[in-house]
């Protein structure tokens, strides 16, 4: 569903991402770990088409993003650290708006309400203005937008940052449900523990390079932490 082929991006003299090769199939959750500036967000922006690659290509469901942006985006949903919604509209109104823009006008309000309930947003909260929402509630609306859009791939950039443990748990449970529904998920995060809980594969990035991409089931939490810290503590950018 998501594929990166030698995907690279340079800002001036600095390579933010170099030769990324990655494939995420439907139903897989790929997590990307790494320090700030490792290239996680750049990777997501290249898949979303907000950045153009300096070299290589990003593919979404067989469509090359740089060449066929609208077709690629039709399959994508995106949940950033701060989900961007209209504060004076309610959660349901935001959902109605974004789904109508996505051409899913056939979804009636009852159906959209169901999407919100599926992501755990209470019925009474759906009609409250988003300016009164907690971060977790906004994340849920972001996921509901992805569901209502019928996106085949979900890109998440630090979605767990700032969530309390209960909200983070609920959010991870939702992600796993989405993966079971054959959605390919790419999540950038600093949270090793949650990454280990939800991911099919965990990639460790440093200085724009993907150093390792490990199957999560092969790792314990402590092993993952040790591998990660070894890479981070290594003075060489390539290790």
């Amino acid at each position, binding site marked *: 569903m998501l594929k990166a082929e030698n995907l690279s991006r340079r800002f001036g003299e600095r390579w933010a991402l170099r030769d990324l090769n990655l494939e995420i199939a439907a139903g897989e959750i790929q997590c990307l770990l790494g320090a700030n500036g490792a290239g996680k967000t750049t990777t997501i922006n290249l898949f979303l088409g907000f950045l153009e690659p300096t070299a290589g290509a990003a593919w979404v469901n067989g469509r090359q993003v740089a060449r066929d942006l609208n077709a690629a985006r039709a399959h994508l949903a995106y949940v950033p650290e701060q989900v*961007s919604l209209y504060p004076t*509209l309610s959660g349901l*109104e935001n959902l109605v708006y974004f789904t*109508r823009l996505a051409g899913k006008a056939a979804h009636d309000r009852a159906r959209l309400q169901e999407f919100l309930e599926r992501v755990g947003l209470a019925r009474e909260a759906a009609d409250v203005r988003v300016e009164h929402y907690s971060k977790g509630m906004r994340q849920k609306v972001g996921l509901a937008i992805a569901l209502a859009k019928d996106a085949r791939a979900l890109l998440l950039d630090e979605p767990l940052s700032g969530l309390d443990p209960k909200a983070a748990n609920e959010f991870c449970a939702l992600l796993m449900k989405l993966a079971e529904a054959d959605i390919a998920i790419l999540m950038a995060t600093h949270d090793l523990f949650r990454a280990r809980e939800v991911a099919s594969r965990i990639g460790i990035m440093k200085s724009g390079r993907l150093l390792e991409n490990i199957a999560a089931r092969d790792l314990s939490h402590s092993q993952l932490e040790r591998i990660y810290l070894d890479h981070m503590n290594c003075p060489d950018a390539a290790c």
Partner: protein
Amino acid sequence: MLGAIVAKEFTEYRRDGLVLAILGLIGALILVGLLSAWATHVEQEQQVLRSQAHDQETFLRQGNKPSHSAAHFGRMAYKPPAALAVFDAGASPYLGQVIWLEAHRQDPAMFRPAEDAPELSRLADLSVAGVLTSLLPLLIFVIGAGAFAAERERGTIRQLMLAGAGIGAVFRGKLIALASVAVLVSTLVIAASTAVAIASSETTSTSDTLARGAGLCVGFAAYAFACAGIALFVSARALTRTAALLTLLTIWGVSTLALPRIAASVGELMYPTPDGPAFWAQVAEATRAARPKRGSAELRGIERLVVSRAIGREISGQEVASLQLNRVALGQEISEVLGANAHAAVYAELYAIYDRQRRVRRAASILSPTIALMHWSSGIAGTDLWAHGHFALEAERQRQLIIRTLNEDMMLNGAHQGYEYLASADFWRTVPDFEYGPPPSIRFSMRSALPDLLLLLAWIVLAIPVAWLGARRQRAA
């Protein structure tokens, strides 16, 4: 998709406290302006009707009287207020309402409403058009500042792009929503003003007032779209919503408050209006220059024209000499014809100066659509200088008719009596009353103000594509 974008924008406007506050302010000021204009209009119209009736009665009750005394006594021409003065008083408060129709002299209008206005009312222009002209852009700019800048700040521009909304659809939706608010507000206000004008005016035609109302709607709609284009351009290019708002507030202050006044002052500096003594000196000089030499062919030609008009057929020069006429009256009528031509030339030059001043202001419309709208609004409301000029011209025709009627009566019926001739008490009824009707039609106003509408349309043609170019360069990343 466009419908969804427009509907969402409207929902956001409805829930924005600042937008509601500005709408409330506009509503309150317009209510005050409309009520006070309505009361003034009704009072003025009644005054005109009462004064006209009184003037007529006085004229008819003169009894037996020397014609020339009656010509100097004269009559008054009262200008009825334009129906849509309730919407836009234009220049009318600064122009006289009554013209004294007397012998030898084409007087300017006297009794300016502004002279009688309470001092405090001079501090603010609370005319309905004034409120709309200055506050509509403020409303558009406050709403429009965040159109793109806030989308970028919140990050929703990314969600829009990902949802599949092209920047073209987003731009069109925002433009339609933004301009629609102002168009809706101005149309409602103009409709209410037109209804008040029709209900309160006894002297103007309903269809003409309706046509003028429609013309005002077109002008204000063009203004709204031009302002919306400016707002979207600034919002698309500004780094933040606050920066966009500050830029737009500066544009608002300069274009609606400063530039119209600066343009008027520059026009006056470039083409100064002569003051009273200078104007009358010009009239005296023109009258002296227009006077042909005694016994000249030109003078004989005018004499023949005057006598031919009086007896109702063409006559020769020899016949003039043989007719039994009051020669004093003949001389007075010749003097009237010459004087009227001299006055007309000096007044034409005065209006040419006003026109040059207007051209300067129109040139300044390139910097501010507000100036073009002010011209268009007062022109279509029938309250600008050109509508007043139409009245002054009709009053002058009436003056010439009255004086000619008096002179001809004296000329034909008072042979050999000189100044001693007395017009009979019944004679005054034969002098036609001044009926200023219909006042200049919408066509007259359109001809005069059409360049201003074209300037407003040019603003749209410029502002919207430039705003689109700015919006197209949005970066979601």
